[in-house]
């Protein structure tokens, strides 16, 4: 595959790994967090850490859309399907997230809920068009990457005058999550730098990370999702640490610039406004960290249409997803990991998505634990 294989080249990786080996200071340790689940997956899937010196440690961050979704939000989606009888559409990974009462969207589907896995939110709009007698709700999750398409779907539904389409909007923002992680640094978490988001940065650009680098004195290197991207970004971080710099650098120059995608940003602003507060799994309730539909689009807001109250639900007692999402614990340090909690029977959300830290470690890396 042209333009993909080049970024997975094993020979280039060996050379880069050798260069990293020469550049690291053997007298210190390096702790870097990859924010995105996409990076977590690439690191585990390609075995990137096997190419790193022993004193460079990667910490998985909270940037997995399914992982940060709190139980209360999944409960809302299940309520829509079972109590309100809507056709609930969502992306595949959402289906297996454990919710209250031993349910998940997948189990609610088996109970008779009309729950559909879709690949694009445009499919949900089409479904509403084809089934005017059904209320179709799109359970919208994800960071800035998936938010503009949801805005397009809402505008499409408005243009079509659809009365049976709405969105349960759980879109979240990346910068507040990074800020939340930074607040915990040094107290509970040793951190020397960030591998910054790939796809999110194509939308928001590299500028939003500049305050973090300056305020917390931690380097940020934005990296693509291919393994060579990650390896190169790690070298750039090591150089910054060695030289005492804390800047925002961009490894993903083929897709990211400082300003991002202005059109997509305008579209998000047109359709959505910031919520006062939003509960995240692991990170708690963060101000101005999520979006909801503006009043002009209120009729497409499922929370308003179906008068859905949000009820926060505590995570499973033994589940360490919260600490794992904040980088304080590693998946294998959770006592449920690999015993009670497996991809077949996930207890916490980090074991669900392939981008989740627990699922990635279980699926690709658990041989290291034995």
């Amino acid at each position, binding site marked *: 595959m042209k333009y993909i294989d080049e970024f*997975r080249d*094993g020979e280039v990786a060996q050379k880069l790994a050798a260069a990293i080996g020469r550049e690291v200071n053997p007298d210190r340790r390096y702790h870097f967090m990859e924010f995105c689940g996409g990076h977590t997956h690439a690191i585990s899937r390609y075995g*990137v850490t*096997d190419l790193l010196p022993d004193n460079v440690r990667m910490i998985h961050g909270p940037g997995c859309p399914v992982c940060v979704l709190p139980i209360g939000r999944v409960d809302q989606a299940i309520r829509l399907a079972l109590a309100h009888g809507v056709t609930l559409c969502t992306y595949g990974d959402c289906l297996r997230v454990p919710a209250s009462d031993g349910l998940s969207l997948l189990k609610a589907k088996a109970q008779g809920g009309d729950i559909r896995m879709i690949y694009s939110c445009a499919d949900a709009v089409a479904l509403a068009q084809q089934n005017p007698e059904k209320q179709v709700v799109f359970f919208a999750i994800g960071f800035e990457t998936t938010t503009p398409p949801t805005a397009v779907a809402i505008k499409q539904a408005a243009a079509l005058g659809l009365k049976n389409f709405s969105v349960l909007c759980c879109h979240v923002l990346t910068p507040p999550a990074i800020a939340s992680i930074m607040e915990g640094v040094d107290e509970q978490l040793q951190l020397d730098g960030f591998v910054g988001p790939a796809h999110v940065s194509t939308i928001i650009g590299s500028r939003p990370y500049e305050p973090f680098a300056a305020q917390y004195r931690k380097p940020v290197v934005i990296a693509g999702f291919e393994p060579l991207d990650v390896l190169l970004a790690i070298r750039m971080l090591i150089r910054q640490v060695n030289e005492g710099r804390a800047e925002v650098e961009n490894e993903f120059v083929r897709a990211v610039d400082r300003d991002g995608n202005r059109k997509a940003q305008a579209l998000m602003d047109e359709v959505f406004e910031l919520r006062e507060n939003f509960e995240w799994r692991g990170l708690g309730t963060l101000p101005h960290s999520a979006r909801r539909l503006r009043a002009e689009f209120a009729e497409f807001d499922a929370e308003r249409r179906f008068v859905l109250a949000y009820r926060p639900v505590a995570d499973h007692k033994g589940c360490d997803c919260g600490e794992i999402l904040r980088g304080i614990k590693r998946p294998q340090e959770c006592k449920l990991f690999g015993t009670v909690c497996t991809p077949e029977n996930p207890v916490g959300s980090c074991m669900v998505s392939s981008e989740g830290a627990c699922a990635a470690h279980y699926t*690709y*890396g658990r*041989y290291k634990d034995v």
Partner: protein
Amino acid sequence: MSEPRKNYVRPLDIKHGRVDMAHGAGGRAMAQLIDELFARHLGNEWLAQGDDGAVLPAPGAGRLVMATDSHVVSPLFFPGGDIGCLSVHGTINDVAVMGAQPLWLSAAFILEEGFPLADLARIVESMAAAAKAAGVPIVTGDTKVVERGKGDGVFISTTGVGVIVAGRELSGCRARPGDVILLSGTLGDHGMAIMAGRESLGFESPIVSDTAALHGLIATMLDCGAELRVLRDPTRGGLATTLNEIARQSGVGMMLQEKVVPVSPPVAAACEFLGLDPLYVANEGKLVAICAANDAERLLAAIRAHPLGAHAAIIGSVHEDPHHFVQMTTAFGGRRIVDWLSGDQLPRIC
């Protein structure tokens, strides 16, 4: 006295007719469907016996192998095949990977009221062609019809019987540390052909299913003199799941080399696009073989000499591992587990 007049029976209207509930009711309509469609295309001396089961010549010395498989693939027709030939190939392969020569098949149809007879005829013709090409006749069958909405067009269950010569022992429990793992060709062609055939995904690709009867290839492998320990066709769950099954059955670990696992460029691209791993995508015409290291080259040459094995490769080895992990050295230079498939990557793949 004149001879009683034969009842006029209107022939099946294959072009415009549809399956109705009577076709499964056991009466005349069903008999007609069997006569004019199934028997017409699948007919042979054993099926012609017309009983509930077929009386078959005894296989002489050796043991019988019997395997059964239900097919619910959606869409029914896909690039490179359809549910008809798939239901023949799948069961022949299940018999053949035991080291047996497949001899006979049975076929049971569950039809949905309203299903177009023209489509059913295409499916049955495809079964007939596949059975004929494989030299494995369909000798008995069954037909049921369910109400509209209670099925999805047609489901087909096939059962195969074969005979295995004395002394031949192939089983998933026979892999030993030091053995070598071979794969007969590219991964993921069937699964990705099905994906591309699903309208809702809205993508087009040149990928065709690899559905094929493998008993010919297997016969050449058995004849080459290599000591085969395990043979299996990596269908649902893909290569990864098949190897995990074998590792568990044999109580061993495995190490694969990603660099040499064959995947065609269109399949690799489609998997990339959909976020799938070809190691987990279904195949319907591929084999995994495990043999002693000394025999690996000879076996590889035998597989490659067969048209269905042109892209065969040695992909890894068996070693001791109390955890029975299947692992892989990635092309990138790292190492990872190749785990069991979790969840359902793609429902109704076969």
